[in-house]
């Protein structure tokens, strides 16, 4: 990856005197992304995963704007129809309140994807800024930031997230904050180590010589070079965020009823595990498939960015 990032930045070094350098640089950057996309397209599991994720996103969006496409109202209770096994009428069966599990699994994609994306966005933005500042500034700033990160890493993240939820109370917004917050150190660490490596390079020295400010150097020169690792980490991060959210839901700390969330559905089915196993099997399958897709896509993107793994 170092090779690729250096290549991509080569024109920046020569940029100053050459008026044609801007289009050239754009071309080079574009070609890196083109290469990555080309390499990703050869990776069948990653492409299938991308398809699954897009499909989930479409399901989430369509069921949000047009809930009438669902076979049943996911919130309508019908106690006379509780715990019906899977059938032609109810593909995944019905839950204790007689709600259609298939409709609830479909609409559950909204919450899982939202939590996955937003909590990663929170940890990404805060983690990247903290990591970049720590790595670039060094010294006491670095020590303080990284020691705090160490402290957060010193407790299992799910335990911290649970403690947060206990303190903040139930709700999907709080789950997003809790999960986003506990993953900050992972991003901060990755970005810091990458920044430490990039900081020594010639083009950063050159930028400093021509008088660029620290902020410009960090955001314009350093961060674009650590983007590949961040993208890979974020893709994999979505999968662990979805897993954590499901765990919170399972423990009864997630959404408020009657919202449909996969982990919550699993948790509620627990008392009827032998009588109605399907109430737990299908939501769990949905979580596993989604997480698997993000993991495979993340692996694929990592390989695509790695020139050593990239086959031309």
């Amino acid at each position, binding site marked *: 990856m170092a090779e690729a990032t250096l290549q991509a930045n080569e024109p920046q070094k020569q940029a100053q005197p050459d008026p044609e350098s801007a289009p050239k640089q754009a071309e080079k950057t574009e070609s890196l992304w083109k290469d990555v996309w080309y390499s990703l397209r050869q990776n069948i599991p990653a492409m299938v995963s991308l398809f699954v994720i897009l499909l989930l996103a479409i399901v989430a969006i369509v069921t949000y704007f047009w809930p009438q496409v669902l076979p049943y109202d996911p919130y309508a209770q019908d106690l006379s129809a509780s715990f019906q096994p899977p059938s032609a009428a109810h593909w995944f069966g019905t839950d204790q309140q007689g709600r259609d599990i298939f409709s609830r699994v479909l609409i559950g994609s909204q919450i899982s994807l939202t939590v996955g994306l937003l909590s990663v966005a929170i940890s990404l933005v805060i983690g990247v800024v903290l990591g970049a500042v720590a790595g670039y500034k060094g010294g006491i700033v670095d020590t303080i930031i990284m020691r705090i990160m160490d402290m957060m890493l010193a407790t299992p993240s799910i335990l911290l997230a649970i403690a947060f939820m206990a303190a903040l109370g139930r709700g999907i917004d709080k789950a997003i904050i809790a999960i986003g917050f506990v993953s900050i150190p992972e991003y901060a660490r990755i970005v810091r180590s990458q920044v430490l490596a990039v900081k020594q390079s010639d083009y950063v020295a050159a930028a400093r010589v021509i008088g660029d400010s620290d902020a410009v150097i960090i955001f314009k020169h350093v961060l674009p070079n650590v983007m590949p690792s961040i993208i890979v980490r974020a893709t994999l991060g979505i999968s662990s965020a979805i897993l954590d959210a499901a765990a919170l839901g399972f423990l009864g700390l997630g959404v408020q009823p009657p919202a449909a969330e996969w982990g919550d559905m699993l948790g509620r089915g627990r008392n009827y*595990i032998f009588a109605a196993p399907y109430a737990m099997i299908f939501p769990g399958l949905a979580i596993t498939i989604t997480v698997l897709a993000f993991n495979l896509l993340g692996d694929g993107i990592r390989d695509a960015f790695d020139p050593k793994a990239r086959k031309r």
Partner: protein
Amino acid sequence: MLKYVLKRILLAIPVLLGVSIIVFLIMRVFSADPAPVVLGQHATEQAMEAWREANGLNDPLIVQYFNFLGGALTGNLGESYYTHTPVTQELLSRFPATIELALVAIIIASVVGVALGVLSATHKNSVIDGLSTIIALVGVSMPIFWLGVLLIIFFAGYLHVLPSSGRMDPLLQPVGGTGFYLLDTLLMGDFEAFSDAVAHITLPALALSMYSLAVITRMTRSSMLETLGEDYVRTARAKGLKKRRVDIHHALRNAMLPVTTVIGLQLGSLLGGAMLTETVFAWPGIGKFVVDSILKSDFPVVQGAVLLIGTIFIIINLVVDVIYAYLDPRISYSKEEG
């Protein structure tokens, strides 16, 4: 070496202090007032005020923190709001159950994970390699509690061969001893009780081990593939040594270095997974206790448990670092960070 260990221990102290601050802040600052939860919605304001006063919740935060810290240093983590039993006692009585579960899980994960990893590296692109890749992928993608549920449905509900919850048949439970039922029953020579303990721990340990098993398999495979490509392995093969001997004695021994680290770190993360597994299998350990206490706003218990788990986590990381430094002479003991 001793200097290195001492330095690592000294470095762990501020981290532990930090953990205690984070836990304290979460539980006391962000959290809502526990009085109505503990005393019930209908308690009078006077009763709640008296309760807050009695539990030191009216003191300034800094005083509360130092009371908590001072107590923690002397092994006093306060009392549970509900049972009024000392938290230390509650945690210690549940500690063996969690550790026993985590140890059995890490043994399963290490043995199966290393074996699968080695097999898939030495038989690259074979059926077994494909199978282990699938296991590794599904293992990291499956929620631990869902796997637990599936195991219960299949082995307890469908086949009726293993129990679905609890740690042991209460009638067979060993009295006294270490609290580690597998060890106690074995030492007492009570094989009926031992096999009952084994039957109870099998499903939760399997569920808990899956994630670590997947990580260890992947790590062993990639580490093994790397060493198999090394010159000394080729030399050994060129000298006419048997493939199996080279694989085990030359490649695996060197490949184990990063694997050891991963195993150690996994042991730490199992403590987090234990909370979910214990809840699924009604395993009477610290994890289930913490979850129950969180749901009841029993702050002293939650604070104490998080601090205890954080401490164990840090100790495990420390031990892993030291073992790693011992195994790999290239790591200098005076290095800033491991």
